[in-house]
């Protein structure tokens, strides 16, 4: 059997097994299966040649009468996202052991269900398959948020769901339209790439895809579902959404949006870049005065994702490579951030920053871990965030110095809201509820140790990760630039 099929379907099998397994072994099974996926990814990585080719190709006629193929493969760009997904799922699963979850079978089954969808999205070379993966990833997270979320979960979740479905539908329309334009009515990405549509049509395609992806990331002004959802979702759901799922949108822009509609990109790319840059500053400023710790992190995530998006639309090697590595970094950091927030919320029963303070004294281990994750988030050199932000800002700079100067404000603004949060939570005097704060326990320590090590390791030695995607990124750039230049 093809190794890539194994990679994609093992989580699905895991979901089915977990659904029917005994309660006592659910967590063990979940941990084990998440590690199996990671091991397969490691195997793929070790056998991966970092050139521009697509490897581990699978191409099965799925519903041939409609031109639908199960066609998937891994190039450098996909490889990074496989790493991201399968590295974070074990961490997220491990962190969820701290949650008091009812109906664990369904909970973990949904996580693995989603993982399968994500892996399809990140490897699909057939538009229909991509769309299926997109929806398969969305639905489980909808249930996770709806069934295990906070008080306002139903209302908030409906908005989240309607938002994303609306985006998906636009994308589906675009895909079907493109499908009908291909000579043999194909969904094959290679056929989509070959299309020579006029620039007005490509403009429509651009917007249809862009809105779908912009909602998912989210990019300003398509973001208003995000703070509510991140806040109300159970922490595991938030981690899945922010750590991995939003990368579907970013990946979509790189793999589908720009290469499929290069002329649309040529016409509208700068608009998208400007929206992204606005989002960076806008969300950062909002984060200044948030008093809900999860909501604050949610807005900070909008700012960071905005920068990634801006780097992509700048469309050069630095911007794209920055986006690639920053997708991984953001995943690691935001999962760490939400995990820390969750530890604090569980101990204090509140998300309100004004009720916290002084925790560094009773919990020095947490203080160190929190600081390391924070430094990665504010992109201090020798942490992972710096490598990504440096390349992203350089990419934006190569496009336009002023956009870079404005997006670069994130360096200052990020420090403001992050340090404010750190001060409100960790520093100052303890109060009656924080004075007896328990420091990290075994599981929490392991999760945060893994995250901290990753943050520093990637910051000091990012080259192995940059090497994975460089050839594929340059190849994609050439491909699109040729089309833009020909016109």
């Amino acid at each position, binding site marked *: 059997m093809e190794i890539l099929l194994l990679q994609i379907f093992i989580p699905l099998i895991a979901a089915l097994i977990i659904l029917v397994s005994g309660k006592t072994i659910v967590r063990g099974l979940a941990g084990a299966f998440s590690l199996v996926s990671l091991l397969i990814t490691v195997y793929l990585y070790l056998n991966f040649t970092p050139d521009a080719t697509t490897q581990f190709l699978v191409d099965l006629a799925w519903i041939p009468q409609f031109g639908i193929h199960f066609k998937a493969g891994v190039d450098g760009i996909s490889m990074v996202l496989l790493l991201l997904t399968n590295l974070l799922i074990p961490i997220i699963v491990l962190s969820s052991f701290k949650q008091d979850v009812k109906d664990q079978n369904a909970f973990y089954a949904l996580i693995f269900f989603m993982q399968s969808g994500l892996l399809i999205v990140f490897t699909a070379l057939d538009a229909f398959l991509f769309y299926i993966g997109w929806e398969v990833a969305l639905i489980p997270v909808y249930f996770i948020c709806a069934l295990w979320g906070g008080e306002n979960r139903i209302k908030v979740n409906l908005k989240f769901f309607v938002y994303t479905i609306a985006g998906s539908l636009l994308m589906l329309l675009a895909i079907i339209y493109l499908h009908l334009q291909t000579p043999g009515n194909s969904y094959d990405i290679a056929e989509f790439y070959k299309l020579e549509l006029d620039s007005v049509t490509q403009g429509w395609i651009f917007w249809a895809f862009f809105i779908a992806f912009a909602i998912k990331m989210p990019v300003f002004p398509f973001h208003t579902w995000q703070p509510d959802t991140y806040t109300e979702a159970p922490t595991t759901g938030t981690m899945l959404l922010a750590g991995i799922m939003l990368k579907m949108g970013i990946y979509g822009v790189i793999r589908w949006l720009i290469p499929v509609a290069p002329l649309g990109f040529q016409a509208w790319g700068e608009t998208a870049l400007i929206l992204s840059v606005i989002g960076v500053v806008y969300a950062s400023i909002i984060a200044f005065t948030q008093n809900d710790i999860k909501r604050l992190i949610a807005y900070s995530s909008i700012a960071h994702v905005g920068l990634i998006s801006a780097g992509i639309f700048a469309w050069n090697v630095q911007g794209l490579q920055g986006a690639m590595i920053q997708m991984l970094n953001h995943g690691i950091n935001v999962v760490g951030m939400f995990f820390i927030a969750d530890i604090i919320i569980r101990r204090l029963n509140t998300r309100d920053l004004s009720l916290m303070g002084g925790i560094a004294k009773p919990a020095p281990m947490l203080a160190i871990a929190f600081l390391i994750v924070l430094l990665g988030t504010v992109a201090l050199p020798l942490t992972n965030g710096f490598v990504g932000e440096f390349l992203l800002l350089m990419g934006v700079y190569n496009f336009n110095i002023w956009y870079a100067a404005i997006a670069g404000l994130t360096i200052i603004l990020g420090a403001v809201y992050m340090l404010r949060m750190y*001060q409100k939570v960790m520093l100052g005097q303890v109060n009656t509820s924080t004075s007896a704060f328990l420091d990290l326990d075994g599981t929490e320590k392991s999760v945060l140790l893994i995250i901290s090590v990753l943050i520093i390791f990637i910051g000091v030695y990012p080259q192995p990760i940059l090497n994975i995607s460089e050839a594929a990124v340059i190849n994609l750039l050439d491909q699109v630039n040729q089309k833009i230049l020909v016109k």
Partner: protein
Amino acid sequence: MINLVWLIPLFPLLGFLINGLGRNTLSKTVVGFVGCLTVLASFAVSIGIFLELNSSETKSFIIPIFDWISAGSVKIPFSFLVDPLSALMLLIVTGIGFLIHVYSTGYMHHDAGFGKFFSYLNLFIFFMLLLVLGSNYVVMFIGWEGVGLCSYLLIGFWFSNSAYASAAKKAFVMNRIGDLGFLIAVFLIFTTFNSVEFASVFPQAANMASGDSTLILITALLFVGAIGKSAQIPLFTWLPDAMAGPTPVSALIHAATMVTAGIYMIARSNILFTLAPETLGVVSIIGLATLFLAAAIAVSQTDIKKVLAYSTVSQLGYMFLGLGVGAYTGAFFHVITHAFFKALLFLGAGSVIHAMSNEQDMRNMGGLKKKLPVTFLTMMIGTIAIAGLPPFSGFFSKDEILAHVYEHNKVFWVIAVIGAMFTAFYMFRMMFLTFNGGFRGTTDQEHHLHESPASMTIPLIVLAVLSALGGLIGIPAVLGGGHWLESFLAPVFAVSATKTGAMTLDHTTEYILMAISVAAALIAMLYAYSRYVKQAHVPADDRTDRGMLARLSYNKFYVDEVYNSLITRPLDALSGFFYKTVDKAGIDGIVNGFGKGAVEASKGFRLLQTGMVGFYIFMMVAGILALLFYSMYKI
């Protein structure tokens, strides 16, 4: 030996790891030994490198460590540069760093966070060494931001005090404003020279025309970075607040080393600045304004550390003024002498505070010279040195700057000399208030007064010797010296020197200038003596009504208050506006409008359905999966 330069940052990094991991298990003695010895080891290697460089024909060595970041044409190696400038800076950082580590074993002995303190201190030394050693702007930037982090951690060392935690945050944020300038300068350097390596950038820049607009922009942006790190107008207000940190930190980070990074960076980039005379003009004006404003604030401060903090801001202003008029050697000379005497003064102040049971208000001191004779004598040497009285070190470095300023702009010179008068005044005022007259503190404090232990006084003595004799490395020709420093640094500034030409002042003018500045300092000293010793004047308490000027100075010209109402509060208001009005009511309102419309429209269709959305979705996914497995099975 030079090939072993990587050992220099490695030792403190190991110290950081050992003390950081063992902060709860290792004894204070072990922690102190690890902390001090790692820095001493770096100092030893630095001496070896210095000696080798001094006798070597080649004056610049690049030592690659590994490839750090590469993306497309951007290649950023992690590599080190050893040349006269970095070699001297290594000696300062590790040498003074070592003395301050030793001092800290005494000063912090009773603190519960002893291990944490030493691990932070070692981490700081590590980053400072990266800053100094980096062979390109990005590695320099690692150190640049890393020292900012350590500064944050150490200012907020006693984080239970919210004011201290706020001071730490303020320092980090203000530094980051500068860092953005630095970062954009790096991008611009890369697009202009296709490299960020000093060895590649500077020769290319040397061929560019003076006044080239790109060079002006690059240097202006780099200077923004320097303003943040070296606490110049308008980003200076974090430094006085940084005094919240333990006093050895103030001595090491906020006086001797980190805050001079801006001067180091400009001296390093001297060729870029020489070819951007417009930027140099701005540098000199900012330096001049800062040295004067800070000195004018220092004259009425009552907290002994605040006096020294504003003094540091002011002295940094002198260094920038020196850079601005092209006196690169003079500015760097002042970096060195200032490191000696300001570290000494801060450590001396620490000794006083230690003896006074953490009292920092000079109004409650007085008459300490009998109880703290070593502290008094060594601080007096530091005071004479900073006041610019010969033959102590500050005289030589300050006069070298002033001579260049005079040649450049007479008005600037006058203001700088008045600044020097202020300097002498506030320093002697501080000394007299602290050490002369009768004791004004509580009887408890008086009972507890004692000279500090040897671990603290020995560093004071060593620094006092350096403050007294440090000027010998740069005795100018006019005073019969060979100016060793100038010839040692000549390779670093060689290209700039060919563009600007040497100073043309004749010896008579130089003698007169020296005489004037010495006389000015003496007058200020005598005035301070008559006011604080003869008349035994003590500054009034906070509630007293002061005259307009005195009130402005005492309240630091209300700069913090102005920033607060012009920047902080409007930004907070903007945040609330964006959140409540734009996000919640505006964008989300529109979205919800769509949603409501859709719900109304779907009411009719809903009757056809059971309404179990979740059920349908599961069926849909199950269907897809069944289809998938079916088709795959078929194949």
